[in-house]
């Protein structure tokens, strides 16, 4: 895809999901009888993004950054403290009753852990067919078994397995069952929260390919949440990077991966181990010091400043907005995308695409390398 086609498509298509100012605070209370709120875990603290039809938006971040809470709010498993989630222009956080039910049908979720997200006492047929109990209009009673078998076939499982129980399947197969359940109601949006992290490497690729194929077949839009940056890049059209309850940088995949401007994104990308031993000699790694601050006590100003090597006084005083940084506003290059940093600058941390066979200036390795490890 060239940039111009993306632009053209982007301007024509109505976003299917529009999230703005999304906030989720979990209260911290003290006392037994007279519960007094003493603080809040600010799990999600002002998140904005849009999802276009047929698009995959990847959300990456480390544990505790709030990405799973965002996922839960999108499918209405958590009520936001503030903000709106607009599905086709309608704010779903305000809906209830029948209207909410019909929206929920269109936004489905695939969970991380295929071992705990399937009820061990239900057969696969019952698990995948359960959504039809709640939304009987989708499939009349007599038709359900056939529908479930179709779904099993679609996700690459033998339709004859319909009466088996989850423990009779491997991790990858269970995740396929989870995906089939997500597809049962023919949703338009699937929110996948770490769908492959619990799987073995060789099985991960199978599930990723399946998700990719289903997207085309059923015209799905994905919100794909993961911590594995290479998988997110593979499947996403756009990527948002979260840190401590906020998106710090968002843009098209090449913008984020090849031209990151936020220091956190740069550190995150540089920390990803690259499966290429030749790269370890000429790679610059940014090792962050310290840990992520507690979401009950978020630093003032920029929330990344406590671990940032660029932090200055301004960062403690002024919250950086998620917008195209001033220095890139007049340019049209790939660095001109939203980044919440006062001192945003481009820095290439991932080796460029399609590297040449022999990187220039990298001497060939002699036999001595086996013993003398000059890389470290």
């Amino acid at each position, binding site marked *: 895809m060239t940039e111009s086609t993306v632009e053209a498509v982007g301007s024509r298509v109505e976003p299917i999901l529009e999230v703005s100012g999304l906030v989720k605070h979990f209260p911290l209370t003290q006392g037994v009888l007279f519960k007094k709120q003493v603080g809040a875990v600010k799990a999600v603290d002002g998140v904005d993004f849009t999802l276009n039809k047929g698009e995959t938006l990847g959300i990456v971040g480390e544990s505790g950054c709030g990405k799973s809470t965002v996922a839960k709010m999108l499918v209405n498993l958590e009520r936001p403290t503030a903000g709106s989630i607009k599905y086709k222009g309608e704010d779903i956080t305000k809906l209830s009753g029948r209207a909410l039910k019909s929206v929920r049908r269109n936004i489905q979720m695939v969970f991380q852990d295929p071992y705990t997200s399937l009820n061990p006492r239900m057969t696969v047929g019952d698990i995948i067919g359960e959504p039809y109990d709640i939304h009987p209009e989708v499939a009349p009673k007599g038709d359900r078994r056939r529908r479930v078998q179709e779904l099993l076939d679609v996700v690459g499982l033998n339709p004859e397995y319909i009466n088996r129980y989850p423990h009779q399947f491997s991790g990858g197969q269970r995740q396929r069952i989870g995906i089939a359940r997500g597809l049962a109601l023919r949703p338009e949006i699937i929110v996948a929260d770490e769908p492959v992290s619990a799987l073995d*490497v*060789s099985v991960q690729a199978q599930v990723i390919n399946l998700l990719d194929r289903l997207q085309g077949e059923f015209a799905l839009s994905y919100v794909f949440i993961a911590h594995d940056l290479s998988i997110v890049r593979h499947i996403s059209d756009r990527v948002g990077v979260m840190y401590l309850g906020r998106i710090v940088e968002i843009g098209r995949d090449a913008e984020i991966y090849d031209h990151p401007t936020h220091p956190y994104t740069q550190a995150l990308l540089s920390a990803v181990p690259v499966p290429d031993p030749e790269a370890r000699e000429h790679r610059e790694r940014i090792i*962050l010091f310290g840990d992520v601050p507690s979401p009950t006590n978020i630093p003032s100003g920029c929330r990344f400043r406590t671990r940032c090597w660029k932090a200055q006084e301004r960062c403690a005083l002024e919250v950086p907005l998620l917008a195209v940084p001033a220095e890139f506003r007049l340019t049209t290059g790939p660095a001109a995308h939203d980044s919440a940093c006062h001192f945003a600058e481009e820095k290439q941390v991932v080796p460029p695409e399609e590297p040449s066979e022999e990187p220039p200036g990298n001497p060939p390795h002699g036999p001595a390398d086996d013993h003398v490890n000059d890389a470290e």
Partner: protein
Amino acid sequence: MLLEVRDLHVEFRTRDGVARAVNGVNYGVDEGQTLAVLGESGSGKSVTAQAIMGILDMPPGRITGGEILFKGQDLLKLKGEERRKIRGAGMAMIFQDALSSLNPVLSVGDQLGEMFVVHRGLSKKDARARAVELMDRVRIPAAKERVRDYPHQFSGGMRQRIMIAMALALEPSLIIADEPTTALDVTVQAQVMDLLAELRRELDMGLILITHDLGVVADVADRIAVMYAGRIVESAPVHDIYKAPAHPYTRGLLDSIPRLDQKGQELYAIKGLPPNLMNIPPGCAFNPRCPMARDVCRTDVPPLYDVEPSDGIRMSACHFWRECLDDRVNS
């Protein structure tokens, strides 16, 4: 050689039958060297490590054959008491999940100090001082104040540092790290791997790094041993494997990682599932999933062939390793 595992066999007797977890593993590691053992769940990589450490649950586990030579001495012939002296002082292990490996009702200082009390006969007070030193060494800030804290008061990365400190306490010559960073976030993973590599260099220890992450391996390993269904299927210097794998399983693993230049294309996926250890396919265990499999693969177990050319010692358990190698070079 610091440690050499020769033709090790381990099986588990269960109600449903015998699971052959390790079926003739050979590998070795020198002082100052990092060996990465790569494999998926059920490949036997952790069981081998447990057998080396002598912490295998027996029963149901049983070592049915082989030798584990540590500094020339066969560990499997030692008595319990002699074995215990080596554990901790000679070799130590770092586990994946620091939270469940640490005792939640003892302070980290007590747990670190225990090593010195038991193995070195230090007093409690001296042991505590050594614990603070160790925590400093693995760069835990304000070690003196935190030595009285309990495991739950530390973050995941800090807990893993404490595990590393514990492993280093008696300055062993071999460290076995079983998925040491799998439970950690990327930025913390980078911190911990850096620390581990630095300490290994400083103390000139041998390191066996057990992992499924091909990225981590490329970053730190000198040699790689790839395991599948309880056997080593390929072992080689790290550069060789990434340049041109000599076993179709290794090739499949490498090809199934999403790469920048393949975006939008279908990922290569190894078809099928890892074998059931109670019922390992005859011949080459990988044959039902292998794109190159032929009749001989279904009947004859491939030996470890010497692979040429290589920068060092290189082996592959594939009848058609030459073809596998050529495929990659030509493509």
